[in-house]
């Protein structure tokens, strides 16, 4: 995986069933992406949050997946490892013919950071 243990670390997982889980993650402040995003002002790149959702969906389904489509992904607040180091990534992955319809939410007790609806397909 691209970003697991580099951009984020999974501290614990609450698996409800094969299609629903909440991943408790830590944003890693020493990730090298912050050198360039931005110098002197670390801001978690929105696309890294999207990749984090994809990797959590891979952990939930046990499958290697491709982000084939994003129906809508709203970035509702700026995330930084200093301001919100602990986040919950809630993932729902409903199986389709060739992959999963995924909805996800990145949030902490204070607010939501990302609302995601997309399609992940099996990477073959």
């Amino acid at each position: 995986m691209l970003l697991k243990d580099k951009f984020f670390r999974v501290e614990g997982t609450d698996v409800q069933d094969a299609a629903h889980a909440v991943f408790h993650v830590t944003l890693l402040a020493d990730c090298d992406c912050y050198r360039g995003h931005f110098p002197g002002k670390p801001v978690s790149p929105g696309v890294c949050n999207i990749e984090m959702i994809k990797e959590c969906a891979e952990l939930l389904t046990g499958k290697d997946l491709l982000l084939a489509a994003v129906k809508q992904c709203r970035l509702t607040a700026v995330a930084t490892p200093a301001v919100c180091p602990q986040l919950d990534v809630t993932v729902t992955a409903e199986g389709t013919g060739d992959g999963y319809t995924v909805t996800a939410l990145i949030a902490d007790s204070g607010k939501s950071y990302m609302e995601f609806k997309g399609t992940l397909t099996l990477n073959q």
Partner: protein
Amino acid sequence: MLYEGEAIKTLIPQRDPIMMVDKVWSAEGDTAVTGLTVTDRNYFLEDGLVAEPGLIEHIAQSASAFAGHRARVAGQEAPIGYIGEVKKFRLYRRPAVGEELRTVITMGTEVNGITLVRGEVRSNDELLAETQMKIFCE
């Protein structure tokens, strides 16, 4: 070619290792054409291919570079842009190291600091990915 390599740093705040645009070919009216050579140092490289979020980031930074150019032309500083929303992203094929990406950015109207942007990434005229996004400028 309007901007290439180091000159791109005057347009966008992103730096190594996550700078994802290295050329601005043209910018006229509401359309710009940007480029990126996929190298083995690409931040989103996985199994020799640029992962899908990397293509979204390339489109977002291309839009920021366009906004930065427009700001410079108007005598202002290039703004920091944040992605507010990604909509209707479709991946067709992930590019490999050595491919030359050519991306068309179309800017919509700005309302309250939020601009709707369309981006299409091609390699040798083959459409690799496309998306709409809303960019929010500080």
